[in-house]
């Protein structure tokens, strides 16, 4: 099920000639990713702000049935699945210069190169001027079709943070962020804006679905323009944020796909934490978005059904160049510089072994610990490491990954799904064990000296 948020228009706009959209987003796969839309009912005005799957460009498109009111599309592509992007769309139709009426900023920088650039006429009232059909106004994470219904297949897969809409005022990115000493665009956690009648700020904390304060779709702008949340997954609020990016499965390094677009041989969902197998020999494998050169790292995995589901750890260079996009047609996590675990069998750098391991079954939570300095790997099931493994003590590892490249977590879901908990669990956990730095939420205790795979830990331990 795909997550989306809905709300009716909240009132007559403060000034329909101006609005500002500011949102942080992180994509999880290449599909049509709709950030914001508005009811496109019969004779009504709709808007769609999205990243397109066909070319990974970002499009700001307002329309009435049959024609565009404005359509601005970047030449910039958005296909870094390990990064957060900050988008600001500033609409001001009163501007005398057409190109100034719709401005798009990415990470604080105004876009100036466009694949399409059709601007609104001067003083054109934006979509907020239109009374929505059937009380369906704002839609976040999906698209309304021409019938005014949620358009199946056009959702948003990934993460959004600090979703701000301002009615009646345009703001530049400096209101919402700043460039730090390292030249990185970082968020302002408490931007000061005048929201206007239809303005809102969604922080997406908590998990309640109804349109109410304190729930996932709560408006914290002060307007109480709350949204209803639909199809929330398990633990929809996460700590994967612009200031601390957690690993997810990376579509760009998916195994056995020369043109992976989310449909061939498998897919990614669950905000990039759910690897979906394509079944049989065509099933693809996935690697984590973050690779590590040093430090000790921990993650948990859960397979809905087992079959030939595999987990593992591998040398990212070997994975990408040999098994990944454009690589050989390997069907398993098996080969040079890779250690795989196929329920009962270990594949240790091309050598299979049946010894030692505890098998995992449906519903089990599997653990993988990596010491990237020694390149040792431990596997565990439900809190017990196989072969009396002791990651904290550095002993009884399953094996040592050969090669010299950075290491990544791997999985191959075969004909089922693999859920990964790199710190933001997409599956229910009874406990909430953080690492020693307070990051992540795991079912089992993180071994001493091991950490969740996120950028704040990378910054401390070198990654």
């Amino acid at each position: 099920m795909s997550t989306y948020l809905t709300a009716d228009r909240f009132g007559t706009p403060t000034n329909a000639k101006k609005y500002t959209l500011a949102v942080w987003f992180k994509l999880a796969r290449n599909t049509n990713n709709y950030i914001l839309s508005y009811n496109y009912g019969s004779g009504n005005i709709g808007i769609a702000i999205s990243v397109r799957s066909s070319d990974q460009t970002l499009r700001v498109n307002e329309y009435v049935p049959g024609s565009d009111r404005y359509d601005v599309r970047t030449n910039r592509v958005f296909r870094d699945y390990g990064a957060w992007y900050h988008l600001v769309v500033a609409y001001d139709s009163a501007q005398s210069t057409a190109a100034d009426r719709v401005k798009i900023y990415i990470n604080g920088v105004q876009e100036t190169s466009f694949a399409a650039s059709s601007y609104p006429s001067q003083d054109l009232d934006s979509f907020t001027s239109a009374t929505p059909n059937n009380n369906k106004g704002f839609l976040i994470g999906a698209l309304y079709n021409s019938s005014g219904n949620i358009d199946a297949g056009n959702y948003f897969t990934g993460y959004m943070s600090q979703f701000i809409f301002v009615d009646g005022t345009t703001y530049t990115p400096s209101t919402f962020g700043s460039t730090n000493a390292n030249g990185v665009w970082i968020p302002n956690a408490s931007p000061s804006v005048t929201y206007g009648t239809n303005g809102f700020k969604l922080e997406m904390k908590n998990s309640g679905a109804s349109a109410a304060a304190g729930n996932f779709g709560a408006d914290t702008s002060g307007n109480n323009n709350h949204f209803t949340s639909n199809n929330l997954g398990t633990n929809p609020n996460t700590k994967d944020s612009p200031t601390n990016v957690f690993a997810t499965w990376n579509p760009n390094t998916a195994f056995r796909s020369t043109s992976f677009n989310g449909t061939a041989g498998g897919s990614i969902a669950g905000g990039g934490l759910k690897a979906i197998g394509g079944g049989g020999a065509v099933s693809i494998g996935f690697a984590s978005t973050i690779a590590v050169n040093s430090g000790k790292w921990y993650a948990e995995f859960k397979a809905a059904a087992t079959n030939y589901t595999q987990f593992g750890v591998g040398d990212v260079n070997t994975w990408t160049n040999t098994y990944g996009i454009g690589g050989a047609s390997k069907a398993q996590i098996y080969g040079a510089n890779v250690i795989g675990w196929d329920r009962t069998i270990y594949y240790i750098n091309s050598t299979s072994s049946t010894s030692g391991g505890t098998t995992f079954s449906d519903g089990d939570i599997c653990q993988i610990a990596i010491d990237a300095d020694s390149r040792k790997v431990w596997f565990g099931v439900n809190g017990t490491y196989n072969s009396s493994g002791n990651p904290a003590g550095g002993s009884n590892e399953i094996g040592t990954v050969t090669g010299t490249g950075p290491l990544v977590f791997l999985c191959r879901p075969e004909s089922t799904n693999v859920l990964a908990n790199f710190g933001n669990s997409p599956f229910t956990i009874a406990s909430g064990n953080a690492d020693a730095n307070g990051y992540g939420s795991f079912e089992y205790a993180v071994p001493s000296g091991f950490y969740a795979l996120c950028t704040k830990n990378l910054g401390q331990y070198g990654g």
Partner: protein
Amino acid sequence: MSEIKVNAIKKRNGSSITIGESGDTITITGGAALSGSGASLTALNGSNVASGTVANARLVGSGAITINGSAVSLGGSVTIGETKPTVTGVTPSTIPNTATNVVIAGTNFVSVPQVEAISSTGAITAANTVTFTSATSITANFTLPVDGTYFIRVENNDGNAVRSGAILTVSDAPTWTTGAGSLGTIAGNFSGTVATVAATGDSTLAFSETTNVLTNASQANCSLNSATGVITTTDFGGSSTSATTYNFTLRVTDAEGQTADRAFSLTSSFALEDSGRFDGD
């Protein structure tokens, strides 16, 4: 020795009677009185009364005694009238080595006295200036390069003087080594050590806050270690959820009670730590 007994000796003529000649001793028998009522006795004074006493009353007039302007009867007593100043205290009681005004409280100051500070070693340092305010208050400006305790000596122009006890202490005031201004930006809700402030001095130092911001649970919600200057918190900013700058003033006080204040600030930041996951299944 012949003896003449008479009841009265009266002059034959004139107005005087002469008894004896120069060098003679005229004895009046003990218990007898020499009465001069209505008559005058001349040449009778302390130098030629060989024994016995002359009644005070007999000396009134030409025999008056005056000491420091006060009449004193012979055989009476008088307090010698010296008017000495006194010193009851100084403010401040502790000063630095640099030129500093000290207000001296006392009595009987006469404009303008001389004032000196006398160290425990006996070294005397005259005041740079002395300002007479009243008979009970003068202000002396001292530059005393050597730390220690000092006596204060005040001498009026008439020579009357007083030396106090060791009532003035010279000591270096504490000095901040942590620069004023921002102590940093701290994540909201942070728990741990926020910052450390430091100062130097010639005795034990104690840190405190003169405002009510840093250690106010409703504001910065920190604790200040008075001995070490370490600022800690278990929840920086308390219940605040938005970036806030907390301005406050800290004071360092040395063992002599000298203080130095400095203004600081701490700013809370709230990183964007949450996101919503859109499953997109």
